[in-house]
């Protein structure tokens, strides 16, 4: 069995730790998600959501490199994510690509079936402790990687020599592929963080602050949204993104499943505009937007892939929030047809608005 998994931002680092620690063979699909998208778009239903198309491209690439089994997480609706694996398997099957899928979710067949899948992951060793240990380590790494990314969000707008952060961070994303296991990767993260701390920054700068909200894939997978977070940083903006890989793993997969309490402040913050959970990350989008406004951010950018159902609902209620809380909100919709240039013009115009508002409030 040679495993592979779909990309989403830095999740490959977390997955790598998990699989290294489990001692199984795996293939990491090439990091280039734009190419994955163009492959996936060829075979996926035209109106399917963008992340599915990228997943599909990842799998086909990984298959060419020898992978035969896909490891994914699942879901049970109401948004499409929970049905990705079935649609993807149908497409692969009709393409004559034979790949198995191990979905880490509670299957229709019950919890025993889930245990069977986990055993299968650990090579039928039936060593539950090893699996639990590996999962814990992976979760810890995901939190460290997210912290590292937050560090780049802070240094990028403040660095005196432009491009310093980018150089260190992209080297990290490449080098991590050659690091091994929890210890190796943890060490590399530590070194990278030190390098980032050593970057010369302008301490007097008070950059504009923008909260990035929206559908999880397009917000977390920087390449899919034209590296918006990086570009904003290099334009002197400090960004924040409340939805993270580690938050998703720790809050949604563990705490929710084990019914442990987790931070649901965003749910209350969303209430006046969106009363219930409707799937995807709509509640987070609306709730985090309200929280960003209350924390004094200058603006909010919502990103989502074309036809994303929960985010369309969120988009419909954001204008009211923007009025009530007096904070500019811009929505960017991503699809495989859209070019980068169009986005940049809109982003620059948005930054102008935020700059002028700030001058007015100071002046």
């Amino acid at each position, binding site marked *: 069995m040679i495993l592979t998994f779909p990309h989403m931002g830095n999740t490959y680092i977390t997955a790598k730790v998990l699989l290294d620690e489990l001692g199984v063979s795996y293939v990491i699909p090439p990091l280039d998600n734009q190419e994955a998208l163009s492959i996936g778009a060829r075979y996926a*239903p*035209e*109106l*399917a*959501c963008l992340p599915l198309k990228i997943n599909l491209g990842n799998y086909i690439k990984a298959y060419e490199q020898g992978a035969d089994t896909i490891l994914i997480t699942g879901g*049970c*609706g*109401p*948004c*499409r994510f*929970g*049905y990705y*694996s*079935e*649609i993807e398997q*149908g*497409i692969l*099957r*009709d393409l*004559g690509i034979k790949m198995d899928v191990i979905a880490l979710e509670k*299957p*229709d067949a019950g919890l025993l079936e889930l245990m069977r899948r986990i055993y299968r992951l650990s090579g039928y060793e039936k060593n539950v402790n090893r699996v639990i240990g590996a999962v814990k380590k992976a979760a810890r790494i995901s939190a460290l990687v997210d912290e590292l990314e937050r560090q780049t969000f802070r240094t990028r707008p403040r660095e005196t020599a432009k491009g310093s952060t980018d150089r260190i961070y992209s080297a990290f994303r490449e080098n991590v592929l050659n690091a091994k296991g929890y210890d190796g990767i943890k060490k590399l993260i530590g070194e990278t963080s030190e390098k980032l701390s050593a970057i010369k920054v302008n301490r007097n700068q008070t950059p504009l602050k923008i909260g990035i909200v929206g559908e999880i894939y397009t917000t977390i997978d920087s390449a899919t949204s034209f590296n918006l977070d990086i570009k904003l940083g290099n334009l002197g903006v400090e960004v924040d993104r409340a939805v993270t890989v580690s938050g998703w793993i720790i809050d949604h997969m563990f705490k929710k499943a084990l019914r442990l309490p987790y931070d649901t402040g965003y749910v209350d913050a969303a209430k006046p*505009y*969106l*009363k*219930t*959970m*409707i*799937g*995807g990350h*709509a509640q987070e989008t609306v709730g985090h937007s309200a929280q960003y406004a209350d924390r004094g951010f200058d603006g909010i950018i919502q990103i989502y892939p*074309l*036809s*994303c*159902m*929960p985010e*369309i*609902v969120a*988009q*419909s*209620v*954001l*204008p*009211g929030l923007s009025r009530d809380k007096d904070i500019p909100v811009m929505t960017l*919709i991503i699809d495989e047809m859209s070019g980068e240039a169009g986005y940049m013009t809109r982003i620059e115009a948005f930054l102008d608005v935020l700059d002028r508002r700030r001058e007015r409030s100071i002046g």
Partner: protein
Amino acid sequence: MSIILMGCFIMKKVGIPRGLSYYEFYAAWKVFFEELGAEVVLSDRTSKKIIDDGVKACVDEACFAVKIFFGHVINLMGRADCIFIPRLTSISRNEYVCPKFGGLPDMVRGSIGGLPFIIDAEINMRKDKNGGLKAAYEAGSFFTTDRALIRSAYNKAVKSGYGVLPAEAAAPAGVLKNEGRLKIAVIGHGYNLYDSCLNMNLLNKIRAENAEVITLDMLDRDSIIKRSGTIPKKMFWNFGSKAVGAAFCLLDRQDIDGILYVMAFGCGVDSFVCDYVERLIRREKDLPFAVITLDEHSGEAGLNTRIEAFIDMIRWRKKNDINLPSHGQYLHHGESSAG
């Protein structure tokens, strides 16, 4: 108009928009509200103006069906004390409807100004078979404080209204001839099939070709439910599992000449359900299958051409008795635009 009684609004006229869940539930809702002494005001049939108003008020990215629903809400403004826009999170065990149904009242509030009071009771039967009754208590509380009355109104509504389709869904009598008659199954959400303005009279266009139209509502409910559970992971959308179950039922039958899948442009649910159903059918049988996508830009001429071409192809195949083996390698995607 509404009067205030002991801190509770007593409404007289309740508006129901003629869109989305209307097709499935109007009969029951009408009984429910009338039992409580309210007058039900239904929005007009979908028209060009209703579509235009809805398209203007709604975010561009929403599906056509939601945009039209917005138009119906606008149509009701000034005509009712309140508008009933329930939050349909789930209408069946372990299943959802669609994120947009779950957030519909929020979307409407976020997009249309000057609305009357919105009754947005949540219907959630995913884990709770009493979810319907709970929603009824909430919705009913705006009309009466008598919970026993609400309960009996709810029971009457379920008994006499459940599964009853509105007049729009009925086929006109006497269009079809016996000789050379085809049977075409049409898969799609009720609001896409029965709103003849939304779909430019699609079903009657098919009937005009001397083809009988079979919709999901004409198939046996129990068989659909039974068959929907026979795939590895059951669909978690109420409509999706219905469509999959129905596809199996249609494949079992020998009298179906072709299958059309009708969807609204921008529908996230259908983008998956249609793909799943299409692959399922093509793997099993060599049955003509086509997809029709509808939106505010669809032209009628394009739709006519597509239907005629589809029917002609079926007749031609019948005449020449073509029976190709069904195989994945023949898989192709029906061109998916009507205009």
